[in-house]
């Protein structure tokens, strides 16, 4: 199982802070495609992905037990 964390607007769109996805092993890219199909996430394309609290690239591997965060454009400061 892979835990997906949502923030800001996408958290409100889905109505949850966290989604659990039943997958053993995938990539960042495939995971984004999966989310795109199953949820209405307006900012997914412009979002970064962090795996276990570190920014990840499209082809990075994601496996069961990982925590994946969808990071829309940040606006801190």
């Amino acid at each position, binding site marked *: 199982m892979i835990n997906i964390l949502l*923030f800001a607007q996408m*958290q409100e769109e889905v109505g949850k802070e966290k989604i659990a996805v039943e997958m053993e092993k995938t990539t960042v890219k495939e995971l984004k495609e999966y989310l795109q199909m199953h949820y209405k996430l307006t900012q997914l394309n412009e979002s970064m992905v962090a795996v276990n609290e570190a920014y990840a690239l499209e082809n990075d591997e994601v496996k069961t037990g990982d925590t994946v965060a969808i*990071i829309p454009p940040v606006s*801190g*400061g």
Partner: protein
Amino acid sequence: MTDKLFEIVEEPILLEDMIKKVKRREAGAITTFIGTVREFTKGKRTVFLQYQAYKPMAEKMLAQIGKEIEEKWQDTCVAITHRVGRLEITEAAVVIAVSSPHRKAAYEANEYAIERIKQIVPIWKKEKWEDGDEWIGDQLERIEYPTGQPNIKE
């Protein structure tokens, strides 16, 4: 406050505490930057702001910025605290304190910190206006990622 140099908090940030974190006998200059909640942005009146952070990662990213700074400007010492939750007009959302033997580095490193915060730290703000609200992203803030992604490694 705690002794942590890089921190996400929910309470008001006390400036004197931030100074204490970077004060040193070898410092001749301490700069601070306080990002405050402004009432008007592009003519539109803000009622309050709501900040949200991916806290553990945000603290890691703040620490990374501190590390970048210590590599770029020798002998500097940095502390950054970002507040989350509801913030009223004039309240401090972020405070950056930098101490250095000489002033030039203290100014430069401080400005570098806020630019990097706006690029890589997972924190978001929601503007509450009189007629609605919206999560702010780079489209509105005009932060541009030339590669379509934040510059993760500086």
